[in-house]
């Protein structure tokens, strides 16, 4: 992916690269989707399924699993601390980026995304299988802590960020940003009482970052979108948010890996928290 001038080209692999590494013992493919049953209908040979909610989130509290649970999850899928994990999925890799971001929360840094995601693999008529792989449990040493402070923003931090006039990127659809609707087109209302955006946020819908075939745009194109048009400055401290944190994971990946921003945090509480929070300041229009 060097030809696109990315800051970290090693974080992105092509479908061809994946096809050539299907038997690589140091690589584990992880499919993460919005469509709950899509993996069961067929997936890339050797890919395991990690579900954003049932695998990565605590089932009671709105939060992520513990480091010990993460280690167990990886172990079950034959992922050790040294395994390179390549994520792909539906929806232009929304959930793949979300899962990658969650892996980073636990300090797993050997991560990559398959550019174009599942749609590109399918469009190229590459092979899918329904055979679910079973790997020998790997040894995964649980991290001592989650890396929330580095890449995750909470409500109070986002509020302070807004009040300080720091960079906020709202990656939702323009109608959601303006407060005209509280859900994106084609999706159900996910329980938000107020519409609008975090004061001071710039609207850069996630989709601006991808081409028609779901591959990421070049670094030059991305810089024009995020810096020339949205006003981000290289190296700036940025918080990105959407509605539940998956679309903003996609933008977090773009800013962190493709443009090389070092201080990007995903506010995963996002609009379902902000738009329901009593007293949270909201701007409309724009």
């Amino acid at each position, binding site marked *: 992916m060097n030809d696109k001038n990315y800051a970290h080209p090693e974080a992105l692999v092509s479908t061809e690269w994946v096809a050539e590494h299907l038997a690589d013992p140091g690589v584990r493919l992880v499919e993460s989707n919005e469509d709950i*049953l899509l993996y069961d209908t067929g997936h890339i040979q050797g890919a395991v399924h990690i579900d954003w909610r049932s695998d990565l989130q605590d089932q009671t509290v709105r939060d992520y699993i513990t480091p010990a649970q993460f280690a167990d999850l990886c172990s079950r899928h034959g992922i050790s601390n040294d395994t390179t994990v390549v994520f792909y999925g539906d929806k232009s890799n929304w959930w793949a980026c979300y899962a990658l971001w969650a892996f980073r929360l636990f300090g797993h840094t050997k991560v990559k995304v398959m550019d174009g995601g599942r749609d590109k693999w399918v469009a190229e008529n590459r092979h899918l299988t329904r055979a679910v792989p079973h790997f020998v449990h790997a040894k995964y040493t649980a991290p001592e802590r989650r890396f929330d402070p580095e890449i995750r923003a909470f409500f109070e931090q986002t509020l302070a960020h807004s009040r300080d006039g720091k960079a906020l990127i709202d990656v939702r659809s323009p109608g959601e940003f303006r407060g005209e609707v509280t859900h994106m087109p*084609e999706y*159900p209302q*996910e329980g938000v009482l107020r519409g609008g955006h975090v004061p001071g946020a710039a609207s850069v819908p996630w989709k601006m970052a991808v081409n028609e075939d779901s591959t990421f745009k070049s670094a030059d194109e991305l810089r024009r979108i995020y810096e020339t048009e949205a006003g981000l400055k290289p190296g700036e401290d940025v918080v990105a948010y959407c509605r539940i944190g998956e679309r903003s994971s996609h933008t977090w990946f773009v800013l962190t890996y493709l443009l090389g921003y070092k201080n990007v945090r995903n506010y995963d509480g996002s609009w379902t928290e902000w738009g329901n929070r009593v007293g949270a300041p909201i701007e409309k229009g724009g």
Partner: protein
Amino acid sequence: MAYPEKLEKIIALFESLPDSGKREALISYADSAPRQGPREGETFDLEDVRKDEECTDTVGVFLKVSPERHCQFRVTLGPQVQTLTKAMTSILSKGLDGLSPEGVMDVPADFVPRIVGADLVRQRSQTVYYILTRMKGIAKVWLNRERAGKAAAN
């Protein structure tokens, strides 16, 4: 309220399955969704093909009501429709087959979690209810037209 007999059998089948079996059965029903579309030469009383905000792709619902007032549904789905919605299309096409339009209108939606299982019912999976809504919608139009026809005849 009781479910229609054919739908009740499908519900009973799913309830007898472990979670892994439920997933396999859902995939099997999803696989058969393309076969729920109109057959060559079929004609319908009503056709309703559209793309709504609630669903990720175009869905076409076709209704034929026999002189005995038995409904037959055909459904076409765009490629972006999610797997659960595909499965529900096959389940409802089979489960509601032969019902009267009034019977279709009376089918409660609370069977969905019994088929899908609590693990798979999510906020973002609400489109599993969409196909039933569309079938009820076209049945309602048919009933309104029948009523209007009778009123005009009197």
